[in-house]
């Protein structure tokens, strides 16, 4: 799944949770509102019922004749209020309680009406009925009215109480519900966020490593399980970029090689120029001086010509060596031993030139596959250059350490001699490039570069004029597949 899909999915999930919580809260608030509305109605009814009971008391205690019609009036008002707000009441208390309330009202109304009719009849039959019977009947009516009133009031109070409790329950329930939904939203949001962030950061780190390695000129493909998300696309893009860079590098190397051939040819022409000139000079001298030369001197001339041709032969042989580099005989070896051996070989030169050597060799370095003689040649070349770049009292520091990317070995040869001017730095590995006139062949670093490349390593140089130069070589660690 693509990262954007994951993020959309996580967002949709969270939005759904938020909507659900919203609906839940809305529903709860609606319920609370209904219940509150009912309690308001119930308060009105209760107040009305209380007034009815007061009128009832006035009627029975003080014989207030206006009390009963007043009660009936209030009853009919309450009835119409109940009918008006039937929906709210039913919603809050249920149909059954509504019916019960209606029935209680009806019972009370009937009791009041019978009390009223009883009172009127009592007045009409005042003469015919004995006083006791009348009293008894009046008491029965009073009791039934009181009972109905009592019931109505109690029922109403009970429902009101019940609903208040309900409202409290709902509010505390919704508080718990809201808290729960907050947790339910937060946990997946954090978890999903964390998960995506960790995955992305992990992959970014890998990509950063790959980009870093590419910037160092290592164009090998990024070995990552290619996921189908955007990071997978980035890794694919990096791989194709790396491939393209590798192709370009090959093209550059090819054109450099061509340029090198040009430099090489010019170098060869120059190198051959001197012995050829010498032979020519010897021939001219021989001809000019022939008569004045003794037999032995003439023979010496020819010996010298032969020596010059030997010189030419040597140059041609070396040239063939460069065009067909010797095959490396690689063996598994610790680099420190080669460094120490090379230093021994230049020890005499170091002593004569009065140069200090600091060795910083790391222990436990991985073994590398190398041709001891060839690598020794490289180290001796670099050490000789460093010695010649310095003055008495200067120092050379030779360091070996694990490779920066964790694998392989790095060797650094640093001097604090006169340094290499910036404009010469890109050419130091070119054939016949030298700043030392005829004393340098200009082939040392060129050959060293070839040897290191044959070892699948790399060599580069940094320098500042007056502060010295630093050559850094990187060798890959040998793998299990490498022989001995």
């Amino acid at each position, binding site marked *: 799944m693509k990262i954007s899909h994951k993020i959309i999915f996580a967002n949709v999930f969270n939005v759904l949770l938020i909507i659900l919580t919203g609906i839940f809260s809305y529903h709860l608030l609606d319920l609370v509102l209904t219940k509150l509305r009912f309690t308001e109605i119930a308060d009105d009814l209760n107040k009305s019922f209380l007034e009815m009971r007061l009128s009832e008391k006035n009627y029975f205690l003080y014989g207030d004749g206006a009390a009963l019609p007043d009660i009936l009036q209030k009853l009919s008002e309450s009835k119409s209020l109940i009918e008006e707000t039937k929906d709210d009441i039913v919603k809050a208390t249920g149909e059954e309680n509504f019916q019960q309330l209606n029935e209680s009202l009806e019972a009370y109304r009937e009791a009041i009406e019978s009390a009223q009719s009883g009172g009127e009849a009592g007045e009409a039959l005042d003469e015919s009925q004995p006083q006791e019977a009348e009293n008894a009947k009046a008491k029965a009516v009073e009791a039934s009215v009181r009972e109905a009133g009592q019931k109505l009031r109690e029922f109403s109070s009970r429902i009101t109480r019940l609903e208040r409790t309900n409202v409290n329950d709902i509010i505390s329930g919704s508080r718990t519900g809201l808290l729960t939904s907050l947790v339910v939203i937060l946990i997946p949001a954090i978890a999903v966020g964390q998960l995506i962030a960790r995955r992305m950061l992990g992959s970014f780190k890998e990509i950063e490593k790959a980009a870093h390695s590419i910037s160092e000129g290592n164009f090998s493909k990024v070995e990552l399980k290619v996921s189908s998300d955007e990071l997978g696309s980035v890794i694919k893009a990096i791989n194709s970029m790396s491939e393209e860079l590798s192709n370009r590098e090959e093209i550059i190397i090819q054109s450099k090689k061509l340029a090198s051939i040009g430099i090489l040819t010019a170098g060869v022409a120059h190198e051959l120029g001197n012995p050829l*000139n010498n032979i020519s*000079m*010897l021939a001219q001298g021989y001809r000019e001086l022939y008569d004045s030369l003794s037999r032995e001197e003439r023979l010496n001339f020819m010996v010298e010509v032969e020596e010059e041709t030997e010189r030419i032969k040597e140059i041609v042989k070396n040239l063939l060596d460069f065009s067909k580099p010797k095959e490396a005989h690689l063996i598994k070896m610790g680099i420190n031993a080669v460094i120490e051996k090379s230093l021994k070989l230049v020890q005499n030169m170091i002593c004569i030139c009065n140069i200090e050597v600091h060795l910083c060799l790391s222990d436990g370095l991985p073994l590398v596959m190398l041709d001891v003689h060839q690598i020794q040649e490289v180290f001796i070349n670099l050490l000789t250059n460093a010695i010649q770049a310095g003055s008495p009292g200067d120092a050379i520091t030779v360091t070996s350490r694990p490779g920066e990317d964790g694998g392989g070995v790095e060797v650094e040869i640093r001097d604090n001699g006169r340094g290499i001017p910036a404009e010469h730095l890109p050419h130091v590995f070119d054939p016949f490039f030298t700043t030392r006139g005829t004393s340098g062949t200009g082939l040392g670093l060129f050959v060293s570069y070839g040897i290191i490349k044959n070892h699948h390593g790399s060599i580069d140089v940094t320098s500042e004029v007056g502060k010295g130069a630093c050559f850094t070589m990187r060798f890959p660690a040998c793998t299990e597949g490498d022989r001995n």
Partner: protein
Amino acid sequence: MANYRIMVIDDENVVGRMIKAVIEQDPEYTVETFLNATPALSRLKEEKFDVVITDLKMKGLDGMDVLRHVKQDSPGTKVIMITAFASLDSAIEAMRGKVDDFFPKPVKIKELKECIRRLLGN
């Protein structure tokens, strides 16, 4: 009979030796040879030379350094440059430094001798 003093500076000893042997056949010329420029320039300070023949590419001070010093210390001395670089660039560079003549390798000693003669006005 005039006696001309000629100096040859070349790190290839055959060059100096052959030039000296051939040119000194003519008793008018005395040739001194040097394998590098530093002692040659000290010698130039001691004695006046009529012609200095120098290789362009040498370790230490090179032909151009020699040319500069000679023209500075002894403007009358002629300078002939010998070089293995038979390229136009070096020739132009050498000419710019007011070199009196220029010989690519391999040098014909007879031509060199004629050149010396010409430069000395004979």
